[in-house]
């Protein structure tokens, strides 16, 4: 078990791939914003890759360990400490009852850390997932972010041989402040909705992430008026970004509202009346979760559906690689 001493900015129970199969009913999949860091953290502590962990956005939080166990912290380096001593990332570490775990705040690169616990987080599955959908107030720990004095149960597990396991450095994800996101054209793009010039802009311009960036959407800087191929949205509305409502391509849709593009992600809307001009590929979704609001930039790179499928296969193979974890 782990007790929350200070919930910081936003600490959530999230698993992967989240709550699939309900988008048709308007329920977003939720799930880890950086699924790669969560999966690697789980594998380090001997869990199944998709087990639930704690997703820590921003930092400024403290925990007390209330039961001996093994943990691994992955993702953004928030200078975590265990009992006042520096805690290495991407490594399984033994913790004892009474230990305190402190996270400072995100540093130069990356915005979310993951605290994975050997055995996993013991919260009820809701519609097949332990993930919190923050904006629906369901799943995870009481459908909300963690707060002071919450006690999160963990699943007991045989801990023999887990402490000391660590990620092979060659598989460490690369962090920066400009995130290249491979993307395929969306259902509403060139030539009907967006100009050639607009697509060149979309796939050639680093776009700053707005402060309006959360688990539903990461809003980006505006596109120019030359982006649009239409004068208006026809029956969908007065602006060329309007369309008659339809289902959105989730997760990773590049959805444009007015001239403002947004990346629709974990808890994002499942349908609406604005164009989806591109879609970030599954293998690169994790990078969005590490983008720092109001600071980092994203740059879309045009790829094909075949590239996206190949990248997904390579990711799956990587997570099964024999040399992924060093014991």
């Amino acid at each position, binding site marked *: 078990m782990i007790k929350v001493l200070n919930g910081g900015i*936003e600490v959530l129970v999230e698993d992967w791939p989240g709550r699939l199969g309900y988008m048709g009913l308007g329920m977003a999949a939720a799930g880890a914003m950086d699924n790669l860091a969560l999966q690697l953290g789980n594998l380090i502590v001997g869990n199944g890759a998709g087990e639930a962990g704690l997703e820590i956005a921003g930092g400024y939080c403290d925990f007390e360990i209330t039961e001996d166990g093994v943990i691994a912290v992955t993702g953004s380096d928030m200078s975590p400490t265990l009992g006042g001593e520096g805690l290495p990332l991407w490594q399984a570490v033994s913790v004892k009852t009474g230990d305190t775990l402190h996270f400072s705040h995100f540093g130069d690169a990356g915005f979310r850390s993951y605290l994975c616990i050997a055995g996993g987080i013991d919260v009820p599955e809701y519609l097949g997932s332990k993930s919190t959908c923050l904006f629906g107030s369901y799943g995870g720990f009481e459908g909300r972010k963690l707060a002071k004095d919450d006690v999160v149960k963990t699943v007991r597990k045989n801990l023999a041989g887990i402490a000391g396991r660590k990620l092979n450095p060659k598989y460490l994800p690369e962090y920066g402040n400009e995130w290249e996101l491979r993307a395929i054209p969306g259902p509403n793009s060139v030539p009907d909705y967006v100009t050639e010039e607009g697509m060149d802009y979309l796939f050639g311009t680093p776009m700053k992430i707005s402060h309006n960036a959360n688990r539903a959407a990461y809003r980006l800087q505006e596109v120019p008026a030359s982006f649009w191929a239409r004068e208006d949205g026809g029956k969908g509305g007065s602006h060329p970004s309007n369309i008659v409502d339809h289902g959105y391509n989730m997760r990773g849709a590049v959805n444009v509202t007015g001239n403002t593009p947004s990346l629709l992600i974990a808890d994002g809307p499942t349908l609406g009346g604005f164009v989806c001009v591109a879609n970030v590929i599954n293998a690169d979704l994790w990078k969005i979760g590490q983008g720092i609001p109001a600071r980092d930039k994203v740059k879309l790179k045009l790829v094909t559906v075949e590239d996206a499928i190949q990248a997904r296969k390579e990711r799956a193979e990587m997570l099964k690689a024999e040399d992924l974890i060093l014991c």
Partner: protein
Amino acid sequence: MEYTLKAHMPGLVARVVVEIGEKVEEGQELAVINCMKTEMSCKTDKAGVVKEILVAEWDEMDVGTPMIVLETA
């Protein structure tokens, strides 16, 4: 002695809730940041008197941006 309240998150200044000359207590909210579509309270670690307000509503800030200066005992 002076104490400077700095932004703990990147984002916009939603509002400053104190005025110059106002006496404030440790732990009191001095301003609010808007980030991740959420309002986040900025509280002072020290008591004092508001000497200078360095930000205005809708200013964009990074982590560590100085916001409010207090004269402390």
